[in-house]
């Protein structure tokens, strides 16, 4: 298969290589003769930084690293729960590995997310029909974006989600996958009974930007007032500062020589 892809793309690669050979020196020469102005460099860099910091995508948080045990069956009488540590960021959903039966119905599977304290109200409730469960992988239970900066969350950063299917017929079940205790931030509960040696196969999903991989821009922006709540502001401020420091150093270097 790889060979066929290579053979198909060979003409394109050879043409690109020919063009590169022919015009690269000319291109380099052109850039040397007409160097881009400082303003152009600055603004194009700003656009790039803005693009990398303004558009968020979903990223998985800390989660169990193994999910190799078909742990049990979720029926209308059972409840599977898992506690986990909320990380700084905006929680947008939870992925859970649940296998639906061969002929899934439209009965609902519900995920209830709340604090690990009964005294506090639930954070979110998401219901999906059985037919929406992914039979080949994890199913995402998307919630309204939830952030840790709300005062209540300071009481505890440990959250808990319960999975129930109260309307499931008695002869049907959903397979629940778990794994050994590889996640230190929480544990599995079955019908509120602690199972400290196991963790449910789950992943909390957080919203992040591409630049968050290197700089925690979303965390810096979290809870700040007005436009300071946008991660891009910090990205552009950092970039601009570095750019002008570089410019000043360049000027100094010119003076030195």
């Amino acid at each position, binding site marked *: 298969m790889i060979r066929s892809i290579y053979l198909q793309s060979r003409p394109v690669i050879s043409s690109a290589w020919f063009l590169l050979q022919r015009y690269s020196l000319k291109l380099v020469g052109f850039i040397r003769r007409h160097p881009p102005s400082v303003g152009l460099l600055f603004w194009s860099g700003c656009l790039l930084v803005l693009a990398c910091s303004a558009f968020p995508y979903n990223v998985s948080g800390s989660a169990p690293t193994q999910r190799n045990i078909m742990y049990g069956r979720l029926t209308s009488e059972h409840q599977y729960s898992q506690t986990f540590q909320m990380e700084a960021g905006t929680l947008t959903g939870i992925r859970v590995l649940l296998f639906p039966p061969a002929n899934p119905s439209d009965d609902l599977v519900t995920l209830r997310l709340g604090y690990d304290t009964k005294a506090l109200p639930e954070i979110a409730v998401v219901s999906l029909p059985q037919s929406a469960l992914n039979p080949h992988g994890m199913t995402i239970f998307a919630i309204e974006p939830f952030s840790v900066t709300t005062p209540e969350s300071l009481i505890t950063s440990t959250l808990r989600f319960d999975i129930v299917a109260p309307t499931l017929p008695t002869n049907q079940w959903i397979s629940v996958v778990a794994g050994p205790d590889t996640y230190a931030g929480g544990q599995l509960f079955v019908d509120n009974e602690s199972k400290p040696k196991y963790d449910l196969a789950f992943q909390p999903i957080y919203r992040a930007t591409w630049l968050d991989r290197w700089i925690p821009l979303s965390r810096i922006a979290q809870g700040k*007032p007005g436009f300071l709540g946008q991660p891009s502001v910090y990205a552009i401020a950092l970039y601009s500062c570095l750019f002008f420091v570089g410019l000043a150093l360049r000027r100094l270097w010119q003076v*030195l020589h």
Partner: protein
Amino acid sequence: MQLGTVLMNTRVESPIISPTTPQVKQVRILATPWLLVILAFLHGLLYAIVVPPWQHYDEPTHFEYARLIALWGRRPAVGETDLETNREIANSMYRFKFWQLGVYPDLLSTTSPHIGYDEKVHPPLYYAVVALPISMMRFLPIEHQLYAGRFITVLFYVLMVLCAWRIATIMAPTNPLLQMSIPLLLLLIPALTNQMSAINNDALVNFSITVLFLSCLYFIRDGLKPIPLCLAVLSIVVAVMAKRTAVVGIIPLILALFWSFYRRPIRWWVWLLGITFLGIFLSVSILEYRDSLWHLQPWIIALDQQYLRLSLDTLIARQPTLEQLVSVYPGVIDVLLTSFWGRFGWGHVVITPFWDWVVRLFTIATIVGLVMGMRFRLYTDLQMWQRRVLWLSGVFVVLAWFAVLVRFDIQQSFYVPQGRYMHLAVLPTILLMGIGLQGFVPKLWRAKVLFALVCSFVLLDIAAITSIILYYYI
């Protein structure tokens, strides 16, 4: 080649910065301050927005002072609080995780929540300035008002960098390397930027004392002229009306005024005699001997109680032994030195120990370089006014250190003053560092060492920003 020759390097020697036409030359000279202003503004703004709300020394109470002026239109008395303001600040501090997990301020109490040391003992000028944007934004959330206040302080920082550039151009009129390096070094000091991007009255003092230094420079170079005199009077008045620590600026001002009148060389023994007589005169006017002990004169006690608040009578009565001095002061000096360059937050956010060692080495190299410069007569080809400016810088630095060390109570050593109090002499320090390090290295490296110093300050600044982000957000 003497050090002075390096200072006086001509612009024409460098082909890159020696344009062929006068118009281009003019543009290039003007471009440097604009570059510095933009960089200073961005740099200050970056620190102002990255550091979480209330995470500067006593920032809640500094802000409270300014907000009360904005709300009431008058100066609040010491101990006077506004319940609503304190509740709002405490609530915001709680939301931004100021306290440890599980600590809650009592927002429903009928008494004001405690938000820190009462800053209303300070003169009100700085707070009145910050109160202007706060009063315009008083209906917005309190964090908006805080950031508006921080923004005003950043403007002082930008003006301070501009002053540094002007001082450097006066001091080394034909050396563009030094002209750029001095303001760049100033704006890249992380602890200074951190302080100049927070709500605190030290910011106005730092700016005013830098303006004072600029006017002193004019006095020493040109003699007594009306505009520098107005600048000096204005800056010292503003500084003293912002914070009591600014009184140390009066002594260099007197010295600069003296040099502006007496513009001929003075022999060293005349200096020695003059300083001795001045010391005797000051001792007699400040101290009195009664009941077999030295006491302060009543007028200085009154001044101390009303303005300085240094407890000078306790200081006189303290009389530490030599053993106490040797055992305590080296540690205090090290704290002052490291916090002068790289301590953030409430002094609890530290830079990596590597950089602490780097700044210690720079300081030692500067002192050694200055001594070597004097020993090997590297400054002899400088003009007399330039040498006097260097001496004035030294006086500024020594006074700033002395004023901070005096505050340290050796008997109750639980509070060690921080290096931020010495930021009012930051520009003289940088000037001496720039000159001193050139005296420390061989002739051929003198220009390169300045560039290397600026590069290392850039790295120091990056390390500082990284430390702040790691501490608060990881």
